[in-house]
């Protein structure tokens, strides 16, 4: 089937509705911004969203997997901070090489995630509690390692941070954006085209059924938390590339931003329904709201939180209504 006929045949399905709503919202917000502030209309505003939020996007992708299984991961913010602190500490004080630091940070993130996943699956501890433990543990570890926020002057890190990839129209993006988009594509492929990905959906739909259908539920559940830990660590590295420092008090509350982005992107909190593309849109909406408020200049940045709260409310109600109509 050619792409063209596929597009023609496409009619919005109910499960795509929240995602479409997010897209409409995003376009409307951009249109509003462009009409109010001439500078807003430039493409670079959009690319800056990606540059500023690539780290959050990667974290939110990991969160998407967890939420699709019906779980939640509260530890992501702490794991992000831990990654920045570990990077700064090892690079500046212990003179590790950049590749070794990157590998170690990613491994620590994945390991923490695996631990929480194992707690959740084998000890039947609610994800909320198990990852709350992870949240405190990782944040505590950050502050044990360092109470300061040293800046990083490693050659590899600074070059990654400062490289600009030029785009047509006098725009540019960072290497982090490319990394984040690669993660998005891989995540989308995994969810749609692999057995692991489909099992993630099945577990979110009905864990009991998934077990009875002979699916590898245990492995899948532990894996999504490992994946979320890995994504958080990678997000932490991207944050390091963005700020070139390791702050033990960074990314506080990131878990909530990530969850908000996933939900605004149309993934249902009880699991089983949602798309990676939705999460990308969700992160962009959060970023767009912040940008609009920055452009306005008169509003306090706390308005971002209020708008996000209102949006979350709106989307959760929308999901409820759709679910009710489907029944």
């Amino acid at each position, binding site marked *: 089937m050619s792409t063209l006929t596929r597009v023609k045949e496409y009619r919005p399905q109910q499960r795509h509705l929240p995602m479409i709503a997010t897209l409409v919202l995003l376009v409307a917000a951009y249109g509003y911004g462009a009409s109010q502030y001439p500078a807003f209309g430039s493409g670079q505003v959009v690319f800056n969203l990606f540059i500023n939020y690539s780290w959050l996007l990667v974290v939110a992708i990991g969160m998407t997997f967890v939420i699709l299984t019906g779980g939640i991961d509260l530890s992501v913010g702490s794991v992000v901070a831990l990654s920045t602190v570990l990077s700064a500490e090892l690079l500046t004080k212990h003179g590790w090489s950049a590749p070794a630091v990157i590998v170690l940070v990613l491994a620590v993130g994945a390991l923490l995630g695996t631990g929480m996943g194992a707690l959740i699956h084998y000890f039947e501890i609610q994800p909320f509690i198990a990852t709350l433990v992870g949240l405190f543990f990782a944040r505590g570890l950050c502050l044990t390692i360092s109470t300061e926020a040293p800046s990083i002057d490693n050659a590899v890190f600074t070059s990654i941070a400062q490289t600009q990839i030029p785009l047509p129209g006098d725009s540019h993006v960072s290497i982090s954006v490319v990394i984040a988009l690669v993660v998005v594509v891989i995540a989308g492929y995994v969810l749609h085209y*692999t057995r692991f990905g*489909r099992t993630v959906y*099945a577990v979110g739909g*009905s864990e009991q059924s998934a077990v009875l*259908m002979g699916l590898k539920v245990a492995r899948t559940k532990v894996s999504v938390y490992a994946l979320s830990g890995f994504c958080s660590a990678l997000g932490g590295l991207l944050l390091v590339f963005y700020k070139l420092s390791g702050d033990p008090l960074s990314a506080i509350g990131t878990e909530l931003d990530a969850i908000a982005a996933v939900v605004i992107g149309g993934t249902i909190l009880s699991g*089983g329904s949602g798309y990676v593309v939705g999460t990308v849109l969700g992160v962009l909406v959060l970023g767009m709201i912040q940008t609009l408020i920055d452009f306005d200049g008169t509003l306090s940045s706390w308005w971002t939180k209020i708008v996000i709260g209102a949006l979350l409310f709106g989307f959760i109600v929308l999901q409820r209504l759709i679910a009710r109509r489907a029944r």
Partner: protein
Amino acid sequence: MTEPEAILRMTGIRKEFPGVVALDDVDFRMFPGEVHALMGENGAGKSTLIKTLTGVHGIDAGTIELGGSAVSFAGPPEAQRAGVSTVYQEVNLCPNLSVAENIFIGREPRRFGRIHWAGMRRRAEVLLGALDLRLDVSAGLGSQSIAVQQMVAIARALDVSARVLVLDEPTSSLDAGEVEQLLKVLRSLREDGMAILFVSHFIDQVFAIADRMTVLRNGKLVGEYRTSDITPVELVTRMIGKELEVLDDLEESAHDRSDLAAAPVFLQADGLSRKGAVAPFSLEIRQGEVVGLAGLLGSGRTELARLLFGADHSDSGTLTVDGAVVPMRTPRAGMDHRIAFSPEDRKTEGLVGELTVRENIVLALQAARGWSRPLSRKRQDELAARYVAALDIRPTSPETLVRNLSGGNQQKVLLARWLITEPRLLILDEPTRGIDIGAKTEIQRLVAKLSGDGMAVLFISAELEEVLRLSHRVTVLRDRKVVAQLDNESLTADEIMSIIAEGSSA
């Protein structure tokens, strides 16, 4: 006649749970190209037998042979790989995935290492086509009817190259047309040489489809019969069994209807129904009248009672209390009209085991008063003491935790709870199940006394003798339909049994 080789042979199966022998020396076999019905009341051991077959439970004694070699499965997935597929009563699929995916998940066709969606949809269409089902296989499973979901579950089971297909109450939530569709599919599978294990409460369906039946009762094998060699009445008799009653007779006056004909009608149902629960029925209960509900477990007795109380709301029909039509949508509405419902499963639906006898007794009264008007502790103590004495609840201390009481005493606590609200209609769902004979008699006496005092009672029990002893009128349910309403003057258990078996009064 020489019999073909059995594909499945279970011999001398024994399964114990702490304190209960669930299966005791049960034999069971299945032949290719046959539908074999496993019959018995709830608790007879049907589900346990299926679970030992599919590896959910291990067995304590006995052997299972599949295709001539001994097997012992570690769980349903392993049983499935060996060719024993099970479709459960509640469809165990994922409503959020598409129809095609539900058939193939875990075994998706792949190409170049990735899931081949188009191929999967094609194969799903072919498989469902073989079951005479044409639909958009990329649609979500959750948007399909239960019947279609059931078929999808069967399609999934078949695709795992099943030799033995186990259907655990597949028809319980289907309507008549859907049942016919399912039976048609089963017939064609049978022609293909599949061995099908069919469990159903519906006698009609069993006689329509089964070639062979095995009857269990209380975990023991009653016998294996060819469908052609047994009548519905014989089947029901074997399922229920004759239970010797050593109860002293209640006074015959219980059956005296002379002064009841003049009593005002308290509650009247007209064409009340709920899809998948009870077909439309009409019923009236007069003040001081005991109406018995007879029927097999799963025939819709509890569902009917829940409609009258408002625990479920009806799809059609009206309910009249004291001559006025009332909406009965919540248990609260039932309580407001002074209807009390003592549920079947006293542990999960009735009593709070962690609370004391006193606290359990005052629960309903407190709820009826509303939380803003708490009962004083003194009043609570008075009430508890009075009912503990009146119903002879033991131990006599109202401060005992309910979970430490015996079944019979728990039942009395439940009764006391509803009695202090002074209901005008008391619905008792299996009030005497699982309690000892002495407590049983006391509860029966109490029911007779309450109705003598003018309370209307709806009495539900699987024990026909008990229903007959207490009721002024008997309503018989079968396959979720009210099939007969009889005055209890000279009714016998045999008559009711034949109505249950055949669906009409003889």
